[in-house]
């Protein structure tokens, strides 16, 4: 399932398809488009199912961690050097970077006049922004103090 998720994540970024519509390389424009929208739909559902787990854990962590207020020391004490939390956040970022842009795509297409390829490219860029800032945030709370970059 993770492989399908990865494949769908990369597919969501690249508008060009080969073979996924079962027609070998170089499919017709309409078939490629249909294959992409079908892939986006599947990626959205798969990432949603995956996020159900991550969000539940995240909400539970938030409710647990905020008892009696929250300090940076507490947050970082939990996450510094903790491989499990790091892996958790990395996968969480991957899932959300797939899920959010596809969701926004539906909203923008239905509620604004913006459609077409330029929208897909803008959302792919948004996905990359989420991935990069997300990984940076995960690294920021995982890396030990000696490895600070500044």
């Amino acid at each position: 399932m993770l492989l399908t998720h990865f494949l769908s994540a990369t597919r969501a970024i690249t508008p060009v398809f080969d073979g996924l519509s079962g027609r070998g390389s170089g499919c017709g424009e309409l078939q490629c488009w249909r294959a992409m929208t079908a892939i986006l739909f599947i990626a959205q559902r798969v990432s949603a199912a995956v996020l159900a787990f991550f969000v539940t854990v995240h909400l539970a962590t938030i409710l647990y961690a905020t008892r009696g207020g929250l300090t940076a020391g507490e947050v970082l004490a939990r996450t510094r050097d903790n491989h499990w939390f790091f892996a958790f956040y990395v996968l969480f970022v991957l899932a959300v970077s797939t899920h959010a842009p596809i969701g926004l795509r539906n909203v923008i297409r239905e509620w604004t006049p913006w459609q077409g390829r330029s929208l897909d490219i803008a959302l792919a860029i948004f996905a990359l922004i989420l991935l990069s800032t997300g990984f940076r945030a995960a690294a920021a709370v995982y890396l030990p103090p000696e490895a600070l970059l500044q």
Partner: protein
Amino acid sequence: MMRASHKQPGFVAALLHRLAGIALAIFLPLHFWALSGALNGADFLDRFLKVTQHPLVKFAEGGIVVALALHMALGLRVLAIEFLPVRERTRVAISICLAVAFAVGLAFLLNVV
């Protein structure tokens, strides 16, 4: 006159799901940026957390927590409609989703306020 279709619970649920999703999509890059501040040391994060003590900020955070719980609950309902063989009782299902989301938000606010 608001159209009857917009007063139906299914539509209200879909609208809340969508608005919560938009709020989360806007919040997320800010959230990642704030956490990356830990790269500048624990005290950047502490200073940042101090700013978030302001009651308006706490209320907004509560809103985001509700948005997350609501988006997930209503999203799980959509997955249930699409993949499970059971037909839902729409009003009941939506009420449960809203109740759970507000309970989570309330628990959060009780912790931080």
